[in-house]
């Protein structure tokens, strides 16, 4: 009885299975075509990153006497000693003794501009992105991060304040709020996820954090602008429907510290070129 029943059972399974397989195949093929097309598109625009235009402007600004003190930024200490720019972005954020806090690239540049040039950070914090003092910051950031391209991400995690910021950043990463209940993790907490056609790196893993953290700041073709990490985070929070994150605030630095520490060992690919 049972022996007779089995073959038909098998054949039903087989046909159900092959129907599923076909369906799955059809779906993968379509998704595959779209992602191949996107891959070719990205390859084609990779050559000639307009971030170079910002980088050139930033190098000029770095060496130009500015501010009430009419000084250059050439003695700015980004963590590797005064004036060392090569590789500096790869080890940020980090704890700085003189300011007694963990700083990311933007907040550290504001400290240098204040100390060396006498430029008030508040005016920079309050300015809109892409204009005035923020525009200068964007150029400076482009210059600094380009000089870490290809370096290993190597962020210190040993100082108690660094440890504290990593822990706080992780908490902020999972903090849900706003009318859509979103946290950073809603989009960046699982492998293989996409919004529309954009791949979302899983920032809770080393590989994902290296990809995400490692390719920002970047020139963004949709806005035709070079975005620093501060602006990247700002627009993430905008789309999370949160209130406006304050430029250089502790929460933005903590998030960067969490991402960078998770990304440790990855390769800096900045300035990136993004959709």
């Amino acid at each position, binding site marked *: 009885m049972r022996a007779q029943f089995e073959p038909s059972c098998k054949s039903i399974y087989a046909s159900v299975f092959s129907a599923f397989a076909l369906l799955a195949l059809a779906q993968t093929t379509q998704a595959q075509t779209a992602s191949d097309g996107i891959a070719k598109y990205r390859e084609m625009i990779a050559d*000639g990153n*307009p971030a*170079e*235009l910002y980088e050139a402007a930033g190098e000029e600004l770095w060496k130009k006497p500015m501010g009430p003190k009419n000084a250059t930024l050439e003695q700015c200490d980004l963590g590797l000693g005064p004036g060392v720019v090569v590789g500096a972005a790869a080890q940020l954020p980090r704890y700085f003794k003189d300011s007694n806090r963990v700083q990311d690239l933007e907040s550290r540049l504001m400290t240098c501009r204040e100390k060396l040039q006498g430029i008030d950070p508040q005016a920079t914090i309050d300015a809109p992105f892409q204009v005035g003092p923020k525009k200068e910051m964007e150029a400076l950031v482009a210059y600094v991060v380009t000089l870490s391209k290809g370096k290993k991400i190597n962020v210190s995690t040993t100082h108690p304040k660094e440890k504290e910021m990593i822990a706080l950043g992780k908490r902020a990463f999972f903090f849900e709020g706003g009318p859509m209940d979103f946290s950073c993790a809603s989009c960046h907490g699982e492998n293989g996820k996409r919004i529309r056609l954009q791949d979302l790196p899983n920032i809770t893993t080393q590989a994902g954090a290296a990809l995400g953290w490692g390719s920002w700041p970047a020139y963004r073709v949709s806005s035709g602008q070079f975005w620093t990490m501060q602006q990247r985070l700002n627009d993430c929070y905008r789309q999370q429907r949160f209130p406006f994150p304050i430029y250089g605030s502790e929460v933005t630095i903590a998030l960067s510290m969490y991402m960078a520490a998770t990304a440790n060992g990855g390769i800096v690919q900045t300035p990136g070129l993004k959709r």
Partner: protein
Amino acid sequence: MADPMRVRATESGGVVDVKILMKHDMESGQRKDAAGKVIPAWFISTLNVKAQGNDVFNAQFGPAVSKDPFLNFKYKGAKGDKLVVSWIDSKGDKRTDEATVA
């Protein structure tokens, strides 16, 4: 005063590969500002590239060329060639930059 361009030119086998990035908003004339007013078109319209004083490339752009325009072309030339790249936009702003073929 317009921002400088980035010009990269490298010679290989008697052919010079020229890549130019220009800093320009290339306003299409299709966008509206926050108040709903159309932002007028403003774009690089003409580009000229000379090597050793002779024209090696000329381009005319409409407003559909992307912001921060990129251009890549190739001409028969040599290392050390002096390139002069000039553009003019639809408001009459202009920019000239020089580069040496590597």
